[in-house]
């Protein structure tokens, strides 16, 4: 019996390991190799070209700015939404279903939907014009209006990707036994204290997963930015795309890809450390 059980887990996990190995690890190693190869032998030429490019600093700044603004907003929003949804008695499934609709929309489609709202001849301008607030079409997404463009991208990203955080947090909330909160209530703890002292600490593992997932995805942001701003708002993944497709320099594109991976890994490591949960703190 023990001999039997010992190999079954490995056999079950083997297909996914093989799958990841073939379609993830191999291309990953190839990309790293590509980023360090130039002509004959290994060199840092691709990284030097990447760092020397006129859009590099801007792409770094924009990507971090977007992450720093979008991810905390999404976590706060998702926390509020999750707490409210878990308090609902009736219609909870329907509300949850509506809130998670954006999850089913591809990011490019979401970007294009927001483009139709925000472009010159879009719904926003039509509405403002009908209300007599603007004399004619106003450009919100041009290179001359960087802050409006940034705000548009933030809005689209929040709309599109808050639901993933919400789903993880709701799952986490359901794991917290009601007794803790009820006991605290009997002892006179206010709702805010209960949220801060009981819900939040017990939600830490879920928060950690949600933060890792969302931050890594935020560093890879591309389709929404591309749809709304083209190259007016350079981001790291967009630069990788441009070097691959427009400039046809696969080495520099690979260097960008490796850089994005390094940043994502670093962010994950920070979260794993900062939000570490000791076993005795688990619900």
């Amino acid at each position: 019996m023990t001999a039997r059980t010992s190999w079954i887990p490995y056999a079950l996990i083997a297909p996914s390991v093989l799958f990841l190995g073939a379609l993830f690890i191999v291309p990953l190693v190839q990309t790293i190799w590509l980023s360090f190869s130039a002509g004959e032998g290994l060199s840092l030429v691709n990284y030097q070209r990447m760092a020397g490019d006129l859009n590099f600093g801007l792409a770094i700044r924009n990507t971090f700015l977007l992450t720093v603004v979008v991810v905390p907003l999404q976590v706060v929003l998702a926390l509020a939404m999750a707490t409210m949804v878990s308090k609902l008695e009736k219609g909870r499934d329907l509300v949850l279903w509506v809130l998670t609709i954006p999850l089913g929309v591809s990011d490019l489609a979401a970007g294009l939907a927001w483009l139709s709202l925000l472009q010159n001849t879009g719904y926003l301008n039509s509405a403002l014009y009908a209300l007599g607030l603007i004399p004619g079409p106003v450009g919100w997404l041009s290179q001359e209006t960087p802050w409006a463009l940034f705000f548009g991208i933030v809005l689209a990203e929040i709309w599109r990707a808050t639901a993933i955080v919400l789903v993880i947090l709701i799952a986490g909330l359901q794991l917290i036994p009601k007794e803790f909160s009820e006991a605290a209530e009997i002892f006179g703890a206010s709702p805010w204290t209960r949220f801060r002292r009981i819900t939040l600490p017990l939600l830490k593992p879920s928060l950690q997963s949600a933060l890792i997932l969302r931050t890594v995805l935020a560093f890879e942001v591309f389709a929404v930015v591309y749809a709304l701003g083209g190259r007016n708002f350079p981001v790291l993944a967009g630069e990788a795309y441009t070097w691959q497709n427009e400039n046809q320099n696969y080495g520099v594109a690979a260097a960008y890809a490796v850089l994005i991976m390094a940043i994502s890994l670093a962010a994950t490591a920070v979260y794993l450390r900062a939000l570490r949960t000791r076993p005795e703190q688990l619900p």
Partner: protein
Amino acid sequence: MTHPVSRRAIAMAAAAFLGSFAAAQAQETVFYSTQLRPIEEASKVRDVLLKGIPGKVTYIVDEPPAFAVRMKAETQAGKRTVDVVGALHGELQPHVPADLQPIDDLVAKVADRGIPANLMDLGKLGTGQQQYIPWMQATYVMVASKQALQYLPAGADVNTLTYEQLLQWAKNVADKTGQRRLGFPAGPTGLMSRFFQGYFYPSFTGGVVTTFKSADAEAGWNTMKELWAVSNPNSTNYNFMQEPLMAGEVWIAWDHIARVKEALTTQPDQFVAFPAPAGPKGRGYMPVIAGLAIPKDAPNRTGAVAVIEHMTKPETQLLTAAEVGFFPVVKADLPPNLPPGVKLLAGAVAATQGAKDALVSLLPVGLGAKGGEFNKVYTDAFQRIVLRNEPVKGVLESQAKTLEALMKDTNAPCWAPDKPSQGACPVQ
């Protein structure tokens, strides 16, 4: 009893089906193209232009970056699946010599088509052997909404416009309508780099590479800054000018004929088409050549040759112009029954080629896989000078270093309108 019979019947039918499938596969010719991609155009190719070729031709299309990757991947894998490829001059260039086979034998076969020798020579891509046979040609034109014509500066004629007049015209439009309505395709997949290489630089400096940081170039960039000040700020989002033209967001635009065609064919009475403006050194313009080539180890070379022979026939060439708006590479008079939109384009192209001050800027040869980075030199200069307002001289100095390194790296000789060079084209 019925079971064995029906089973045998099924088996026989299956065998017959698979057999016919294999037979069809054997004589199928796969035609892989980066041109004529939109579904309407691709259907025209399948249903009209490829009719009359013996055997089955499968026409498949791809975006240029995917085309480049597939060509290289098939070479590396040692398994070729396409027989004949159609792509732009610049898109075929990176595939010499690794992915394409020389087709000198075809030159004789299409000798009676009347393809001009200079076009045929471009098909050698800077090597000693024929790499592609010219297929169709296009160029870039200006398109303006008829509403804009009333604001033309006094004495200006759209067919002999200068950059000074264009600037004044766009200024008038902006002043009178309150909107900046000149437009350029400076979006991520727009062809702005071609504007600089084929139009702006030749018109202002008489060269493309050698004159990159000349005093003439500095003066040109200053005009460009003024032009930008009266251009629609959304220009950095435009990839195809037909969309903002049709939306009325832009009234005066420059773009590739295929990228303004929809505006002209859907509303031929709303727009005019005319040559790009002239600068101090002439009216720079750049032809666009698409070619047909045969990849290395193509499984069905006979079929590929048949496709190339068919597509270069004068009657197919005229049909191509009428159906999809790309112009012949052979000497053939365009039929009078062209659709009105295509007729407007044909008129603008003829006016460009026939202009007294026309200054043709040839396609770069010998840049190999560095074509994308060559474009980047010009778009980076644009981004820094015009969008970021950096000092013109300093930007040109530093971009010139990149350009010089690129030329030395590829050892590409100068092409018109730059004077021929011994070895790599120098930046003066």
